[in-house]
C-alpha cells in the first residue's frame, strides 16, 4: 500500500493472456486493467477463466501468451516468488493453509525474517499489530485446523498483507462467510482500498459486485467480455454479459398443495461424531408430500452426517428415521432406494459416481435393482439403450459410452440428477435428498438443477435440500431448518425468511441467547 492513492492511475494491466490445459482452452486473450485504490470485480460463471487468469498473475500458472504490465512497466511473472516481489497477493478460494501449523506460522512461512531460527515472539508482535490495524484479529497461536473458516480467511489475508501488497486478489471470498461476516470483510476491503490498495474481487454473486465494487470485468469462456462501472450498470445487464443470453429464474414454489402425508420423519436422531461428541444431536423434523425443506448451516455443522444418516450410509446412534410411515432406521440403503429415497451427494465424483465408468453405467447404478428383469446378468446393450433418454432429456454433453469423469462438473451433476429422479420415480415415497446440488455449477446448469428439484415437489414428491447457499434455500424451500453444531436450532416458515436472521442462527445466536 504505497504511493499516493489516486484512483485513476493504472496499476495493473493484463494483455491478451492465453492459457491451455491439454486440449482445453482456459484463457483466450483475456485481459483487463486495474487502477490504484479501486475494488475491481472479476465476474463470470464457473469455468469462465477468472481463477485461471488470477493464477497466471500470481505466478502459479504459466501463461502461453500475453503480457503483464505493472505501473506502466512490463513485468515478468514466472514463479509465485515473482508475484510476491511485485507486491501481488492472492487469497485462494480453497485456502492455501497448512492445517497443523499455527496461524502465526502460516502467516510468516517463507518470510520468517531470519534463515535459521524462528523468532516466534518477535514475529507474533508484528503480525498482531498488522491484524489489529485492519481488524483481522485471530488467535495466532491456534493451529489453523482449529479455526473456523472466517478466521482461516483472515489468516490468508494476513499472509498476503504481511508480505506487503499493492494488489490483493480474493477468489470468491464471501462463499464461506455468513452475511454479517461478508459485510464486515467488504467494509474492511473498502477501507484498505481508500488507502491505495487495489483489490481484485472474484465473484459470481452479482449483488455483491453491484453493492461493493467500483468496476467489474466480466469474463465468459476464457475471454473478457467487457469492463463496466458498477454504478452505471444493472443486474440484468451483468447477467447478460456473463452468460450471453437470458435465463428464466426459477420461480419460488410459493403455492403448494396442502398435503399432510408425511414422506420422511426424523425423530430425535443422534449420530456419533469424532471424539465422542455427537455430530447430530436430537434432530427432529418431517417432510411432507410436495414439500421442499431446506437445511441451512455453516459447513461442517453436521449436515453431512445428518444426510448420510437419512440415506442409510451412517449409523444412527439414537432415535428413528421413518420413510412413508415405515421405520427404516436400520434398513439397508438398497431397500430405502426401492422405496423412492434418492440421494444427490455433495462430493459428486467421490460419493456419487464411478468416474472411469461410462455415463450409461453410472445412470444405471442404483436403478439396477429396480430395473432388473430377472436373471443374474445385465445386458450392456440394454444399459446403453436405457441411457439414451436421459442423455437427451437432460441435455448431457457426451454419449452413453463416454467415461463420466471426462465430463464437466455440470454434466456430471445432470447424470446424478437424472439417476436420482429415476430412483425417486420408482418408489412409493419419492424423496430426493440433495446436498449442495448446485455448488460450483454455472448459472444455466444451476437453474436447470433447481427446476428439476422444484418439479419433484410439484409432482408431490419431497425434497430435502441441504445447501450452503442461503439465496438458493430462500428461493426454493417452503421451510428452512437451521443446523448449528449438530442441533436444529430453528424451523422457519417461508414468511420468516431473512438472510440476516438465518445468518445469526447459523453462527449460534439462538444457542447463546
Amino acid at each position, binding site marked *: 500500500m504505497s504511493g499516493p492513492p489516486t484512483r485513476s492511475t493504472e496499476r495493473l494491466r493484463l494483455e491478451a493472456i492465453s492459457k491451455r490445459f491439454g486440449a482445453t482452452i482456459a484463457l483466450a486473450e483475456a485481459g483487463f486493467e486495474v487502477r490504484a485504490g479501486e475494488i475491481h470485480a472479476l465476474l463470470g460463471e464457473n469455468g469462465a477463466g477468472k481463477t485461471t487468469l488470477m493464477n497466471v498473475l500470481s505466478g*502459479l*500458472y504459466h501463461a502461453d501468451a500475453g503480457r503483464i504490465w505493472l505501473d506502466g512497466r512490463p513485468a515478468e511473472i514466472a514463479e*509465485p516468488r515473482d508475484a510476491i516481489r511485485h507486491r501481488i497477493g492472492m487469497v485462494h478460494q480453497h485456502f*492455501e493453509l*497448512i492445517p497443523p*501449523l499455527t496461524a502465526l506460522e*502460516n502467516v510468516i512461512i*517463507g518470510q520468517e525474517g531470519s534463515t535459521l*531460527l524462528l523468532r516466534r515472539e518477535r514475529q507474533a508482535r508484528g503480525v498482531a499489530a498488522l491484524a489489529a490495524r485492519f481488524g483481522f484479529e485471530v488467535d495466532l497461536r491456534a493451529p489453523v485446523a482449529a479455526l473456523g473458516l472466517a478466521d482461516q480467511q483472515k489468516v490468508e489475508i494476513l499472509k498476503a498483507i504481511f508480505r506487503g501488497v499493492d494488489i490483493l486478489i480474493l477468489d470468491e471470498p464471501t462463499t464461506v462467510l455468513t452475511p454479517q461476516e461478508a459485510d464486515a470483510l467488504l467494509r474492511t476491503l473498502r477501507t484498505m482500498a481508500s488507502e491505495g490498495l487495489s483489490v481484485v474481487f472474484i465473484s459470481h454473486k452479482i449483488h455483491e459486485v453491484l453493492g461493493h465494487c467500483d468496476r467489474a470485468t466480466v469474463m465468459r469462456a476464457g475471454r473478457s467480455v467487457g469492463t463496466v462501472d458498477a454504478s452505471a450498470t444493472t443486474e440484468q445487464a451483468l447477467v447478460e454479459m456473463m452468460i450471453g443470453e437470458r435465463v428464466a429464474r426459477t420461480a419460488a414454489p410459493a403455492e403448494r398443495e396442502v398435503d399432510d402425508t408425511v414422506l420422511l420423519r426424523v425423530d430425535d436422531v443422534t449420530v456419533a461424531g469424532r471424539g465422542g461428541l455427537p455430530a447430530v444431536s436430537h434432530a427432529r423434523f418431517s417432510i411432507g408430500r410436495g414439500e421442499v425443506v431446506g437445511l441451512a448451516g455453516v459447513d461442517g455443522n453436521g449436515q453431512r452426517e445428518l444426510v448420510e444418516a437419512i440415506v442409510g450410509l451412517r449409523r444412527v446412534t439414537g432415535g428413528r428415521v421413518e420413510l412413508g410411515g415405515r421405520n427404516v432406521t436400520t434398513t439397508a440403503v438398497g431397500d430405502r432406494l426401492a422405496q423412492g429415497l434418492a440421494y444427490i451427494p455433495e462430493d459428486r465424483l467421490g460419493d456419487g459416481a464411478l468416474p472411469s465408468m461410462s455415463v450409461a453405467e453410472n445412470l444405471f447404478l442404483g436403478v439396477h435393482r429396480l430395473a432388473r428383469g430377472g436373471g443374474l446378468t445385465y445386458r450392456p446393450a440394454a444399459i446403453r439403450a436405457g441411457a439414451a433418454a436421459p442423455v437427451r432429456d437432460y441435455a448431457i454433453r457426451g454419449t452413453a459410452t463416454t467415461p463420466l469423469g471426462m465430463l464437466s462438473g455440470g454434466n456430471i451433476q445432470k447424470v446424478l440428477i437424472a439417476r436420482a429422479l429415476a430412483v425417486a420415480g420408482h418408489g412409493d415415497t419419492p424423496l430426493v435428498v440433495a446436498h449442495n446440488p448446485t455448488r460450483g455449477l454455472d448459472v444455466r446448469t444451476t437453474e436447470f438443477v433447481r427446476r428439476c428439484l422444484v418439479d419433484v415437489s410439484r409432482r408431490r414428491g419431497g425434497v430435502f435440500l441441504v445447501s450452503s447457499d442461503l439465496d438458493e434455500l430462500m428461493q426454493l424451500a417452503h421451510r428452512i431448518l437451521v443446523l448449528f453444531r449438530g442441533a436444529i436450532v430453528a424451523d422457519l416458515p417461508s414468511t420468516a425468511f431473512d438472510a440476516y436472521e438465518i445468518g445469526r442462527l447459523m453462527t449460534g445466536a439462538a444457542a447463546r441467547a
Partner: protein
Amino acid sequence: MSASAVVTLLLDPELWRLMLTMAAPLVLAGLGELVMERSGVLNVGVEGMMAVAAAVAFLTMLKTGTLLGAAAAAMAATLGLAVVLGYFAITLRSAQLTVGLCLFVFGTGLASLLYRLVIGVTTATPTVQTLPRLAVPGLAEVPFLGTVVFTQNALVYLALALVPVLAFLLVETSLGLRLRAAGENPRALDTVGVNVRALRYGAVAVGGLLIGLAGAYLPLAVTGAYSDGIVGGRGWIALMVVIFGRWQPGWALVGAILFAYTEALQFKLALVTKAVPPQVLLMLPYVVAIVVLVRLYQGAEPPRALGLPYERESRL
C-alpha cells in the same frame, strides 16, 4: 525361574546396553525416513538401501581398512539410490510406493551381487574389525546408566545426539517449518515463493545419507561380517518406528528403543532358556511390531501430502 530372577534378567545392564547398540541403526534409519516423510516423500525402500549400504561398507572396510572411508562409501551409495528415488518421486511424479518397492528389491539384489563380485563364494567368511566401544570418562562409572549409555560405540552417541538436533530443527527453525509445510500442503508453500522441489530433494538426500549410515552400522559395529539378509527387516522396522513416533523424532527414538529391547531380550533369552525354541524368540521383535502398530496405527495422522507428488499446474 523365580520372579526376582526374571526382574534381574529384564533389568540386566548388559541387556540394556545391547538394546541401545541395536537401537542405533533403527534410530538412524528412522530419522532418515522421518526427514523424507516430513517433506512428503514416502520411501518404502529403506530395507534395500540399508542392504546396499551394508555391503558397500563391509567391502570398503575389508579392502581399505578405514572406518570413515567405509561409512562414507556406504552413504554415497545410498545417496545415489535416494536421488534415484527423488527423481522418480519428485521430478517424474511416479507412484512412490511402487518406486520404493522397486528400490527394496533392487537394493537387496544389488547388495548380494556386489558381495559375490568382490568376494566370490568362499567357505571362510571374511571379517573386519568392528567399531570399538568408547567409554565416556567419568560418566561411564555411573551405576547402570554408565554401562548402558556411556560405553557405546561412536555411532550410538551420534544417533542419540541427532534426535534432539532434528527435533529442534523441525520446530524452531525456518527450514523445519518449511519442511513440515512441504509434507502437509506443498501448494501453500509454493504460493509463498518457496521452492518445494528443491526442499524435497534436500530432504531425500539427507534421508538417504542417514539410511546409508544405518546400513553401514550393521557390519561395522555389530557383526564384523556381511551375509545376505544382514538387515533382517530393520529397514521395515525403521518405517514402523516413524509411524510409532507419529513423525516426531523423540517418539521415534522411544519406538526404536522398544523394538531394540525386544531384539536384545531375544538374544538374552536364547542363552538362559532352552524351553522355548530359538526360532520363536527370533520372532519376538516382529510380533511386538505387529501388536504395537495395530494399536498405534489407529489415529496416527501422517503428513497430509505424504506420498503425493506435487505439480504446480495440476488443477485439483
